[in-house]
């Protein structure tokens, strides 16, 4: 089997990356770098959580960092960035419905200040 031979024959660095590219997925090295990035973002989240200075814009900051982690995991670890767009469409549909439900319910029950001021 060519792929197996390739995997064993490649003793030099980058062989795993080349092999992974055959599957259209990143290799072990890329996955590890992404893992480090995710850990750094999580550390940043906890750091900002403890800082009084950023309290005014803490919520959008945390949401932004959380969305970045979400996108990185879905894009790279779940391979949506490399796979067929139909998978993205199917998952995106559920995601949009879920986000809409959360947003609609929070407006409906007055968790956002804007409707209360209008009312």
């Amino acid at each position, binding site marked *: *089997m060519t*792929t*197996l031979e390739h*995997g*064993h024959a490649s003793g030099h660095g980058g062989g*795993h990356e080349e*092999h*992974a590219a055959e*599957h259209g*997925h990143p*290799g*072990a090295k890329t*996955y*590890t770098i*992404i*893992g480090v990035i*995710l*850990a750094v973002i*999580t550390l940043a*989240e*906890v750091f900002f*959580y403890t800082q009084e200075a950023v*309290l005014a814009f*803490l*919520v959008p900051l*945390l*949401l932004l*960092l*959380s969305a970045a*982690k*979400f996108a990185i*995991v*879905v894009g790279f*670890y*779940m*391979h949506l960035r490399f796979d*067929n767009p*139909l*998978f993205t469409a*199917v*998952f995106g*549909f*559920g*995601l949009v*419905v*879920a*986000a809409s*439900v*959360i947003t609609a*319910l*929070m407006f409906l*029950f007055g*968790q956002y200040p804007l409707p209360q001021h209008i009312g």
Partner: protein
Amino acid sequence: MAQTAVPVIVDSGAPPPVAAEAPLVLEHPHTSTGLDNRKLLMWAFLASDCMFFGTLIATYMVYKNRSLDGPLPREVFDVPYTSVSAFVLLLSSLTMVLALSSIQRGEERKMRIWLSATALLGCVFLGGQFYEFTSFYREGLSLSRNLFGSTFFTLTGFHGTHVAIGVFWLASLVTHSFRGRLHQEHSLLVEIAGLYWHFVDIVWILIFTLVYLIPD
């Protein structure tokens, strides 16, 4: 009058061919999308699970700060402790993709190690959640204590259940591999299990931010 062809069975005397050991997974048949239906089905399931967790998160957010009686989130949450749990789950996502990468290269031993590590990290996360739940309970927070308790335990409890199912799934894959029934050509099985596991991770990314980090 036309004659109809009658099939003739000839006994050659040879024993019938013995079926080889059935493979765990066959090549996926031709589909109208050109995609493997099992993978598409998993994505459809994850989309529906998005809606499921969306409603649970929405319920938690709607009832946030509406408890008339304590304990309240700021009184019981231990963010540094939960941060470690978040790290553990993130790390398990890394070991999961390394398991997939290994089986795609035909390195079954490495795949078993990474899959076992993922399952172990999942168990560590569950143990941490069990400890957290019991410590909250000792502080007076229960499912029926107040709105915070009801929504928090329902949301995180369902997430924990998903993690537990994932751990069993991973353990079954490791068992299949030890029995010699999970090879390079079956990498899709590991990929599908990985999709589920990563989904559990991204749900925790949202829960960690929305429930634990965003202040009251």
